[in-house]
């Protein structure tokens, strides 16, 4: 036995040493890559691989390449599930792509952690004016931007005009406040025993409880500029809002809520399309589904109702940025592409072809007027732009990454009935404060 083991031991330790050496040889990519024609290659990663989106982004890339003598962008599609873990591994290995589409809400954290490059040195004064300020601010860490906003979204109220007319409501006068929302919803309900032939409204379809909290407060849980000196989770308003949300569930009944929810999840069976649901909060892109599955639906769009008159129609959004990972081989060329990608021309093309909200204000406004959209499409897009004025993002403060993971479980418990709103929010507040403390 001994004799057999010896050569094996030698062999394995040799393998180990070799693999160890390989580990220290991180490929250094600082020289840049060029293709056969001597053009600088910009490696661009996105998760837009669907039938709808891929042709649009590929066209934008092709247009950019056609306009360039020295740069060629190579677009690589990487699935949503692993694009960012792959990117992170590539950054750690020292050979990252040059431009990546990433989540806007953690841009500051990526800046802090040296994953994304500081883009301030590349841009001219006034560059930031092209974008919605709320989006721009979400990309800042200590005053510098680490990603340029690409697309975004917001939440608006879709309502069925025919149903409004049927119960004597003015179809051009959607609910303005939460009180009106409740009143109209009750009028629009058509009960049939324990079941509903038509349901007026339910607040937790399409959006979560946090959107209603944001709407009522007009701000996220944290202080100005996302400072974490104040954490406003356990507040009287929030307790009231949660109880209000739950009162809908109690009134309508668990079973009705669940069966409607299942239909909504199935997409084409959405009760809003069939007129079984009169009002629904959704992203403006919901319009593409309406036009596909319910062409003849007579609907309108409105801003989210406000908590109290004068409180503001605050809505919630997110979005994506284009950023340059730390260690990119040619940041200058990468920046040239980002400038094009977030410029008015490419943004308008994206907005119209995908019916998606874009971050560039000029492009968004042009898209709303575009002849390529139908009249209804223009109406929805216009509302999306108006709603953007009141749309807030909820980026994670650098001291509280993934803060919602510490709030959602307690709020779940509240909705399930095992905690009161006060208890749930008090615990959430304590957990988030702990999280902040451990990150300071």
């Amino acid at each position: 036995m001994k004799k057999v083991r010896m050569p094996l031991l030698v062999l394995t330790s040799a393998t180990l040493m070799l693999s160890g050496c390989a580990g220290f040889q991180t490929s250094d990519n600082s020289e840049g890559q060029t293709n056969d024609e001597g053009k600088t290659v910009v490696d661009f990663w996105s998760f837009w691989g669907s039938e709808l989106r891929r042709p649009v982004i590929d066209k934008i890339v092709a247009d950019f390449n056609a306009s360039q003598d020295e740069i060629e962008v190579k677009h690589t599609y990487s699935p949503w599930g692993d694009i960012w873990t792959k990117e992170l591994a590539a950054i750690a290995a020292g050979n990252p792509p040059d431009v990546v589409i990433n989540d806007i809400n953690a841009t500051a954290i990526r800046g802090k952690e040296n994953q994304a490059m500081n883009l301030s040195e590349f841009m001219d004064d006034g560059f930031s004016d092209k974008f919605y300020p709320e989006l721009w601010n979400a990309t800042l860490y200590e005053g510098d931007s680490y990603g340029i906003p690409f697309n975004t979204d917001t939440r608006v109220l879709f309502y069925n005009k025919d149903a409004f007319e049927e119960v004597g409501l003015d179809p051009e006068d959607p609910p303005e406040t939460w009180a009106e929302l409740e009143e109209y919803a009750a009028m629009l309900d058509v009960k049939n025993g324990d079941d509903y032939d038509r349901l007026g409204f339910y607040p937790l379809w399409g959006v979560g409880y946090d959107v209603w909290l944001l709407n009522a407060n007009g701000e996220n849980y944290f202080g100005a500029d996302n400072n974490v000196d104040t954490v406003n989770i356990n507040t009287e308003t929030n307790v009231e809002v949660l109880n209000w949300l739950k009162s809908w569930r109690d009134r309508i009944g668990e079973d009705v809520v669940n069966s409607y929810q299942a239909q909504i999840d199935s997409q084409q069976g959405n009760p809003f399309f069939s007129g079984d649901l009169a009002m629904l909060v959704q992203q403006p892109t919901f319009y593409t589904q309406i036009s596909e599955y319910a062409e003849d639906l007579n609907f309108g769009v409105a801003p989210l109702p406000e908590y109290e008159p004068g409180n503001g129609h605050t809505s919630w959004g997110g979005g994506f940025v284009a950023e340059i990972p730390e260690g990119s081989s040619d940041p200058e060329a990468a920046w040239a592409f980002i400038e094009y990608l977030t410029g008015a021309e490419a943004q308008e093309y994206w907005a119209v072809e995908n019916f998606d909200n874009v971050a560039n204000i000029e492009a968004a406004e042009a898209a709303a007027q575009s002849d390529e959209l139908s009249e209804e499409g223009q109406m929805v897009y216009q509302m999306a732009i108006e709603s953007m004025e009141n749309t807030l993002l909820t980026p994670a403060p650098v001291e509280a990454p993934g803060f919602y993971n510490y709030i959602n479980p307690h709020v779940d418990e509240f909705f399930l009935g095992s905690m009161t709103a006060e208890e749930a929010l008090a615990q959430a507040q304590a957990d988030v404060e702990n999280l902040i403390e451990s990150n300071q």
Partner: protein
Amino acid sequence: MGKRKLTIRRKESIYGYIFIMPFIVGFFAFTAGPLLFSLAGSFTDYNITSRMDFVGVENYQSLIVDDGLFRTSLWNTIYYVAFSVPLTTLGAIFISALLNQDVPGIRVFRTLYYLPAVLSGVGVYLLWMQLLEPGTGMVNLLLGWVGIDGPNWLYDPDWTKPSLILMKLWSVGGSMLLYLASMQGVSRSLYEAAEIDGASRWRQFVHITIPMITPVIFFDVVTSLIGGFQIFQEAYIMSGNGEGGPANSLLFYNLYMWNQAFESFDMGYAMAMSWILFVIVFVLTLINLKLAPRWVHYEGEEK
């Protein structure tokens, strides 16, 4: 060495090493380095890109002392393992015993029961999310026919883990195949002898079949125990937003670790978590190996 012939024993051990060579080479070339790196990293505040400072046992300390979510995730995982491993093992033995009968059309049945094991991944999880839908799903529909008002499955924290265990039971076909192969290898003469002695079918099963397949049971228990502790995808997909909800009931160990690593970028912390899990699984496997001689029967074993 050339002068005398190798003994059979020595020859066999050389063959043995040659057979496991691909694994050994792969292990040292690809796995060992990252493994050691993660051990070292677990004592740092490594975040992949900007820092890697030694922090001693701080990660381990705050995990064990302060972190409530760590405890929740460990509890969820142990709950899942404690129910899923015995149930899937029993389920697989039961089905393979049924499919070991000589009845017409048995091949069709075998194929049917094995099919779920072929399907895997996200598609299956999405399918089960539809099946378990409380209002319109097939499972509650079937329960409704026999007068049972089905639970809210993936929406009720008390039922989320049972939902996953149910789903696992559906796909026991993979281990069923192992049992079936092993059962077919049991010598007919044993059963014939037992029959002559007047043993019932049940006693034959308990006293012949089960002891003869214990090596496979042992293998299945050990691998599914290790696999059970690694549950991740199911929770990532089926908890809707991938956060382990509702009420953290699907926050499994690996999901929490993944969140720490790739959402908070707290890689050192996540590495410490992975080593704690390693120790837990290692100890359980050792216990298994120690207990094995008491109940696992190897044919032709030297005692």
